[in-house]
């Protein structure tokens, strides 16, 4: 499932998967601006069939955060 997650992030933020890691943040990835961040949220929601709250959206500062919140919604991600 992590594979699916990284593919999605790489597609939306237009960076190669090799450049992505758990530690990737909006600061380290050029395209990760606030708009693309929302677009990412939208795509995650439809891909994993979840709905994030505003608090959760604001709490995302890295890919690790995304994974944490997906897990909280019961999404199983194998690493």
């Amino acid at each position, binding site marked *: 499932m992590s594979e699916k997650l990284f593919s999605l992030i790489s597609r*939306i933020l237009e960076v190669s998967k090799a450049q992505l890691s758990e530690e990737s943040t909006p600061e380290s990835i050029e395209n990760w601006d606030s708009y693309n961040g*929302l*677009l990412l949220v*939208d*795509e995650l929601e439809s891909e994993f069939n979840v709905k994030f709250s*505003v608090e959760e*959206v*604001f709490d995302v500062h890295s890919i690790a955060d995304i994974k944490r919140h997906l897990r909280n919604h019961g999404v199983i991600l194998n690493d």
Partner: protein
Amino acid sequence: MYPNEKSLSYYIREAKNLKKIEYGKKIKIGILSSFTITGLAETIKVKCDKVNVNCCTYVSGYNQYNQEILNSNSNLYQFKPEILFLVIDSKNIFKDDYEVFYTKNIDERKKIVEEKLDEIINLAKIFVNKTNSKIVISNLSIPSYSSFGILENKDYGISQMILEFNQKLNARLKNEPSIYVYDLLQFFYRFGEQNIAEPHKIAIGDIKITFDYLPYLAEELIGYIKPYLGLNKKCIVLDLDNTLWGGIVGEDGFNGIKLGPEPPGNIFMDFQRWILALHHRGIILAINSKNNLDDAMKVIREHKHMILKEEHFAAIQINWIDKIQNMKEIAEEINIGLDSIVFFDDDPRNCEIMKTALPEVLTINLPKDPSLYLPLIQNMNDFNVLKITNEDKKRGQMYYQQKQRSELKNETVNLEKYLEKLETKVTIKNADQVTIPRISQLTMKTNQFNLTTKRYSEEEIRHMMNDSQMKIISVQVEDKFGDNGITGACIIKLKNKKEWYIDTFLLSCRVIGREIERAIMSFIINEARERGLETIIAEFIPTKKNSPTENFLDKCGFKKEGEFWIFNTSKEFKKPSIVSLIVK
């Protein structure tokens, strides 16, 4: 939902990968909005690319629409969009008052509506006065909730206010030729506020229309771009079996086909009704069907539930010849470009073959479920026009008259005799407010008899009309079968005291070959003489389609000098005797 759209992120990605270098047409559009609408421009670009249009976009900063329009030096005016879309939302318009009107009395609320209307209309007018462009402003969506609760309609709450705003917006802009109102309320109604407005997106990003609905909005707005560029479709060509009725007449028989008030026959009646409505609005209809002519005509002529009748069709090809050949003949008979045709057929193979052989035709493979035919055609944005002219409304009738003309032609062997019998009357008039839309439409649509194929928007024509050096005329053609309406136009420019330059000389294909072009030229030459001009300069700019115009200047006695054609007004020029000319 029909049809299904791709996601916004798909369009945003695609927009970065547009590689085409040469396009058929190009357009510049501006997008101003009162909320975050990122991605709309990208989607419009990609969608335009698919119909061979190079679309350049300008998107203003978040909620900058007032400044952009009011400031003559803004980036917006430097970009010079041909169409500007202004998408606004109720909350932004009513600001702090929104939802808390109950502190104000009804008169005060009415006053606020009037003030807001003035603001928006004023902006639109400022924009069109500063440019030669069109502006499309959205009306306001109505929230589906009210703080007045069940008493909303007994009071004058937010719904009532917006309703009044929208009605007055339409009423006050009805006669503004360059300002259009886009029905955003209907868009919300169609897709539903609960789907479009996602609370967390509104809260975080002021995204009032959530991502995946923007492609649908883009499609709606392209409905303005297509007619602006003359890419709208003028003719619907229809298959018969399982298209206009259910079943196959050759197998199921006259009484076996499904067409009538009972389901599923009602589906086909509704589909036919919609097509008839388009026809009344100026869309030409034709039939292209593999069938026994007698079987099919019996249904068309005698079936009591057929909504479309023989007289609605400008061309009928029912035979066992292949549909490609039939399509070419329909185009020729109606005298229309293949790229102006939409073809509806239920058979996927027929559609594949048509798409491959005649890619210019927009071929629509009807879905398996006939109840989806109607939503499909209702969702098409290809039949839009920016103005319905009198000619559009009468078009159906005109094609019927055209049929009668060809019948007379078949009876009359000698062409000259035929033309004489037609008793053609040509009326030439200076352009005025009434004829400007039609003149613009002719410059956009006329391909075959057109010396220079210069396309002019209404605004450009209006602009030229105010220039004393320019003469713009409309040409109306009548004959014993009826009125063809305005079917020709010329734009002439005074170059200097002695010379006139024919910038535009065009004639609709419906009336070509009847000496009308010579009658118009005789008018121009006479007029030049009366004004004491010595020379008329004309130009022929060849295109793929205007070969019928190629020899016209030569035949009129113009002499080629370099790139231009010159006529000395001292030379004699005879008006064709079979055409009577009226100058108003």
